[in-house]
């Protein structure tokens, strides 16, 4: 643990919002991307030395976004400063920095929007809180648009549905357009294009890892569970976050998926070309990146001739897959254009495309196709952390709210001891882990630890009341973030794990009797 970073004290529940503490987090900002990183993905390498050039470029880009995104346009106009969102952001609750209140985060851009794009802001800037774009303002954007995890919790409570994530994405997009990108996200986007996944794991290493997993599972269970890669003609293409290949506890869930496919007798494969479900194009709000990263999945599906596409445990990846793949890459129903038809004529459209691994597993459980021994999980007392992108930006199953019910149904089918965390911190009101949306980087650890506070408080209560010792989740970023920050709050890092980790423990292989 870094010596100078401390977790805030857990507060009495129910909590009151912290007092406003201006600039509490003003010095916490991610590393700026190098010229090489930016240029590799088509952005200007660095800020122009002439401020006027930067200024004009930023305003022009903002104007272009305002014409392309209704969300941005409406959200910048509609806010009435009612304050409904002001105590909803985990980063505000953990830091007290007022610029981490969603409305104030938006106002960093709204004030500039008003100055350049509205009449009152042009005529009476002071009156309406409008201001010129200056180097200080741009620095503030860089700091605070990189202190947002795009979790959408604020949008649940806004009377107009204003989603700060949309503003943050626009902010980062403008910063990228002037050469002021963030290292963590942009470097990873470069890797996914160059190597195929966010972790930069090349094909041969991936193959090696998967073979190792086959041996491990054989040793554990005595069963030959395959982890196939680039297998043409397989029924299912599994696209999963690359952390699943070797990070703990992620890999336990990958083993879980493999066991489910094995038990169901469904042929499946992963792809070295699309060895990453994550799509950091979302985090930086760049449509071209979002699209070209999503296209890899389409290309892999066409290349391998699969019938179904299933997505592993990853929050933002599921948002992109569920909500955007049909738009971006024609993966889904309803498209009559040649681009869509090329893929839909290959896929088996009797199934939902794309499908979440939890939907896949739950279908099998409902059909009685899996043998599950709940007692095998008796050493665990489990709670479930809803991941923000799954909860507030996607769905599973046919009915609204399936994204909450299906993972819980799987947990109930695989463990005997399950307890919810306190209401107001789960389902659509779930608190972000503190590491989502492109802030999962070490130089932002202070922010990540403090942002986890509301979740940690709810977890502590579940531990105190029910003896919870395992927090299941279905997001690679949640898993990585909690592994890192749980110890700051006095919990064991191994307390977090995947839903399919529970499945993996409970499932009995070797054929259903």
């Amino acid at each position, binding site marked *: 643990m870094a010596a100078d970073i401390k977790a805030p004290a857990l507060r009495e529940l129910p909590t009151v919002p912290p007092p406003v503490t201006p600039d509490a987090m003003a010095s916490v900002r991610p590393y700026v991307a190098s010229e090489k990183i930016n240029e590799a993905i088509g952005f200007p390498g660095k800020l122009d030395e002439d401020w006027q050039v930067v200024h004009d470029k930023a305003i022009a880009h903002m104007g272009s976004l305002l014409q392309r*995104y209704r969300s941005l346009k*409406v959200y910048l106009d*509609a806010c009435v400063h009612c304050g409904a969102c002001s105590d909803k952001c985990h980063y505000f609750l953990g830091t007290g920095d007022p610029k981490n209140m969603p409305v104030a985060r938006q106002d960093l851009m709204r004030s500039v929007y008003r100055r350049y794009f509205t009449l*009152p802001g042009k005529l009476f800037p002071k009156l309406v809180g409008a201001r010129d774009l200056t180097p200080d303002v741009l620095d503030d954007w860089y700091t605070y648009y990189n202190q947002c995890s795009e979790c959408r919790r604020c949008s649940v409570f806004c009377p107009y549905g*204003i989603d700060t994530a949309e503003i943050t994405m626009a902010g980062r997009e403008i910063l990228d357009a002037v050469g002021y990108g963030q290292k963590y996200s942009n470097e990873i986007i470069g890797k996914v294009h160059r190597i195929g996944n966010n972790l930069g794991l090349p094909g041969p290493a991936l193959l090696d890892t998967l073979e190792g997993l086959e041996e491990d599972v054989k040793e554990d269970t005595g069963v030959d569970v395959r982890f196939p890669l680039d297998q043409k003609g397989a029924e299912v293409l599994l696209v999963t976050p690359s952390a699943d290949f070797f990070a703990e506890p992620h890999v336990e869930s990958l083993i879980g998926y493999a066991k489910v496919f094995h038990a169901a007798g469904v042929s499946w494969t992963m792809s070295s070309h699309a060895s990453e479900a994550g799509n950091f194009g979302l985090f930086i709000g760049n449509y071209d990146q979002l699209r070209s990263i999503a296209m890899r999945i389409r290309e892999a599906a066409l290349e391998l001739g699969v019938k179904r596409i299933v997505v592993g445990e990853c929050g933002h990846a599921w948002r992109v897959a569920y909500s955007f793949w049909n*738009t971006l890459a024609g993966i889904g129903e309803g498209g009559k254009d040649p681009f869509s038809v090329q893929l839909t004529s290959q896929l088996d459209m009797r199934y939902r495309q794309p499908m979440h691994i939890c939907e896949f597993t739950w279908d099998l459980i409902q059909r009685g196709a899996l043998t599950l021994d709940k007692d095998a999980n008796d050493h665990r007392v489990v709670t479930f952390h809803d991941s923000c992108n799954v909860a507030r930006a996607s769905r599973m199953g046919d009915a609204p709210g399936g994204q909450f019910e299906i993972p819980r149904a799987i947990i109930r089918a695989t463990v005997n001891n399950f307890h919810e965390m306190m209401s107001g911190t789960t389902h659509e009101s779930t608190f972000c882990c503190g590491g989502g949306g492109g802030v999962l980087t070490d130089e932002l650890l202070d922010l990540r630890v403090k942002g986890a506070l509301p979740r940690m408080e709810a977890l502590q209560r579940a531990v105190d009341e029910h003896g919870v010792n395992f927090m299941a989740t279905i997001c690679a970023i949640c898993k990585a973030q909690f592994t890192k920050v749980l110890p700051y709050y006095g919990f064991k890092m191994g307390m977090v794990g995947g839903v399919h980790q529970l499945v993996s423990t409970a499932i009995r292989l070797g054929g259903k009797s």
Partner: protein
Amino acid sequence: MSGLSLAFTLLFYFAGAVMAIGVLLRVATYARTPAPLKIPTTPAPTTATGVGLRMLREVVFFESLFKASLWTWLFGWLFHASLLLVLVRHLRYFTEPVWSWVAFAQPFGMYAAFPMVVGLAGLWARRFLVDRVRYISTLSDHLMLVLLLAIALSGLAMKYLFPTDIVGVKAFFLGLMLFDWQPLPTGGALYLHLSLVAALMIIFPFSKLLHAPGLFFSPSRNQIDNPRETRHLAAWAARLEER
């Protein structure tokens, strides 16, 4: 007709035009601007009817605000509901004969001015008392509440302190609508009330009052949750596929 009557006649034509054209242009911009991605805040309705109901709950009950903050909801809803009744009541000055449902609403509209003032006062108090709301409040946020309060109070003053020739006021507004201009009765409270209302109408399309039409165009609220079933593609995004 006095110079003052003429001034108010022109003022209301101007204010009416600014408000109507301004809001129309704004709404047209919202409608024309594409929403390239499906971003409803989920869980979201999976049908158009469901979205209609979600919208109705937002507009009528302020559902999301209710979940967010009971105090803000209480004062906000009180203000808006009272304003609606007050506006309905005021339709009597623009209709002859007065529509029966407007006549029915008259007594409610009369008293609605009081909860309206309470709601506005509560909303304003929050801007001083809650440190988070104080931090985000701009001068225009305060002035907007002052303007609405002044409109409500000057209206109440006309009713209870300085009786006004409302028959003459009605003749004035009917005259405006029929292009048969009539003199405006005299009265300080009346002049103040009408000037402030005209100011509000002029400000409307340029201010945060756009939250009213804006809500209907908010993608996180008005989109159907069906991205796997239908392909959603903005025109500018579709052009990328032609490359």
